[in-house]
């Protein structure tokens, strides 16, 4: 996606309606719809809390498929008659050629890498189209169906990471560019309770190892396309695989709910529900230990339009603290105990991951500030009078940024670089 076309959506323009397209199997739908003891799912709870006096959340659900299969439709492929004639699991097969992904307007498309990891692809001889037969087809299809299938299809096997990056990347770009939508992709937890491998000599990749590879490939795609990752691996790791992974890629209800809540947190952070004209730039949290920094140099200034990818400022890390979290009866309660507090000399460059008009700077160079301190205010549009008093700034959403630790610690070299 070109940077000129990337325009974050900050408002639903007052319409209490939001649309989600979920293309995944249980790994996606269970995270939003699995009911808790009180009988409500995460999406339901969220919608009720978000819109007190009623709202509509349009949800379209489709089974997940590898991107290579989905893209066939984009290339003009429709359901082959021969497959209908053979009577092979009609609904499962038809879904691979009749997705609404490229027609249905949606605010957010939610995909998953799980089909990429688990599916086995077959290719039709002569005609070349791909098919992902249903699990257990070798037992459930009739002998005639199996014979016909083997006579007409070649087994390609599982998707490689390289194929995934190419095909999934193309799929994401298509949704971002042509549908102008945000794309959120679920990763996979890499913990498999049945896998205790420690030596991979003369072994194929295990399911867990494939999850590692595809999770990493997904991060690479995010770097290239700006797709949003829902880090299922981290969420499940924080909760603990022993208690929350029933079998590989199948999570406990509590883990599913945590994943669903993370999706909704991301959607809120994307700004879909904000009608605020201002965005506030605060000192970002690098990690759990980072406490404060001092601005070394601003790369932007008041009165300038900033777009995603523009450098904003450099700062030096001044202080970190170490915290210990204790398991208390209340899992939301975190006890912070300083173990060590030291000054550091890391230099960090903060880059814009949003667009906005630089309205006002609050901290000058050499100013020291703590995580979360207000550094500047942006507005969504330029050349527009916008009130930015204390209250309106306080309620403004965050201007999204990316912080990168610079390689050099050499102050002289950095100054030379900054002075061009």
């Amino acid at each position: 996606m070109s940077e000129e076309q990337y325009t974050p959506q900050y408002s639903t323009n007052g319409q209490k309606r939001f649309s989600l397209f979920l293309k995944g199997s249980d790994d996606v739908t269970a995270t939003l719809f699995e009911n808790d003891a009180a009988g409500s799912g995460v999406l339901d709870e969220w919608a009720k809390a978000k819109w007190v006096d009623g709202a509509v959340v349009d949800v379209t659900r489709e089974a997940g498929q590898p991107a290579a299969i989905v893209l066939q439709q984009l290339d003009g492929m429709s359901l082959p008659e021969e497959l209908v004639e053979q009577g092979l699991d009609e609904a499962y097969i038809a879904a691979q050629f009749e997705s609404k992904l490229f027609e249905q307007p949606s605010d957010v498309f939610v995909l998953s890498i799980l089909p990429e990891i688990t599916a086995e692809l077959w290719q039709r001889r002569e005609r070349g189209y791909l098919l992902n037969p249903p699990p257990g087809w070798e037992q459930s299809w009739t002998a005639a169906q199996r014979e016909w299938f083997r006579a007409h299809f070649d087994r390609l096997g599982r998707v490689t990471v390289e194929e995934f990056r190419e095909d999934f990347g193309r799929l994401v770009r298509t949704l971002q560019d042509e549908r102008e939508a945000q794309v959120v992709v679920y990763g996979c937890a890499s913990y498999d309770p049945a896998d205790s491998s420690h030596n991979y000599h003369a072994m194929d990749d295990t399911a867990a190892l494939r999850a590692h590879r595809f999770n990493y490939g997904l991060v690479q795609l995010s770097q290239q396309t700006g797709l949003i990752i829902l880090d299922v691996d981290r969420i499940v790791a924080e909760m603990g695989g022993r208690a929350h992974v029933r079998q590989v890629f199948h999570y406990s209800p509590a883990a599913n709910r945590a994943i669903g809540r993370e999706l909704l947190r991301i959607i809120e952070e994307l700004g879909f529900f904000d009608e605020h004209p201002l965005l506030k730039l605060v000192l970002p949290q690098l990690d759990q230990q980072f406490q404060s920094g001092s601005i070394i140099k601003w790369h932007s200034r008041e009165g300038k339009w900033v777009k995603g990818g523009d450098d904003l400022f450099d700062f030096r890390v001044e202080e970190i603290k170490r915290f210990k979290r204790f398991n208390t009866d209340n899992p939301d309660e975190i006890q912070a105990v300083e173990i060590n507090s030291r000054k550091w000399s890391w230099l960090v460059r903060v880059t814009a991951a949003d667009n906005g008009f630089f309205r006002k700077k609050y901290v000058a160079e050499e100013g020291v500030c703590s995580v979360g301190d207000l550094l500047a205010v942006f507005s969504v549009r330029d050349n527009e009078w916008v009130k930015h008093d204390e209250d309106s700034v306080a309620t403004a959403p965050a201007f999204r940024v990316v912080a990168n630790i610079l390689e050099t610690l050499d102050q002289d070299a950095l100054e030379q670089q900054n002075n061009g």
Partner: protein
Amino acid sequence: MGRVVAGVNPTLERFLRNQYRSLRLTFKKRKQGGNYVYFRAGKQKREPVGIFLRGGCDVAAAFACEPFIKEVLNGACCIYRSGIGSSSSQTDLLLQTLEGIPEALTAETCEKLQIKPSYFKPVLFKESFVVPTVNGMEEISKTVVILSIGPDFARTVYRHREHGFLVDPGGWWLNQSMGSVLNDMSSVMWFNKTFKKVGRISVEDSMANFTRIIQLIRERTGAHILMFNLLGVEPGDQTYNFRYRQNSNMMRRREFNLALYDLSRQLDLSIIDVDRILKREGVQEQVDFAHWPIDRFKPVAEEMFGILQEREIF
């Protein structure tokens, strides 16, 4: 008769003497130092099992293996940690020790950075190591060597501008508070004048180094080799978009882990899968990827012990 403790009461005297003998036997079965533990179990007299560690904080988890090993051990075992942690375990530094750098060239560096001359000696590639045991100074053959990808992932090395050798000055020195460093500007200026930064090693170079190191250890010692990987996720990190993200440590850790899985396949190498173990137990309590809560050492040690059992080490 010797010294009398309980006086004229022979029963009490006998009881106290037996207690004393038992305690002495217990002590004789175990000896511990700052970087090693030597222990015995059973009555068999044979060559001790030598477990040699070289890496960062992670390899210290091997010491938590002791109770597991004692259950099955019939003889002696020594777990020994070489080097000064991550800062002496980056693979370029390990391979450098084979070059035989003259002590005259490294003397000033050793003095200024307070590192021992053994920093430049090939202790990793020797067949044995020496520790003070219950029998006095004892030379123990390496049965198992445990390494880690942590130092290659994390450490930055520096090259001597004139003599070309590499050092990692160590976390304690470069990560001191600015106050204490600035109080000794002469050391800072000396280091800046004498060394230039090489940076962190690439994943490809690291794996090439480990391939050579593992082959050399196998040739020279015959030891079984195990390697620690790293936790791939960053606890508490809520990043969801990696556009414009450069030099991400989380990505680098994942690259190293994936490369290690491939190295395992290529070299028939066993991995102590810290990533899997910590994810199984839960990482909510961790402040970062590298420093585990104390109760995580046991499951890691259990995993390590399981691999050693499969290899029939004991």
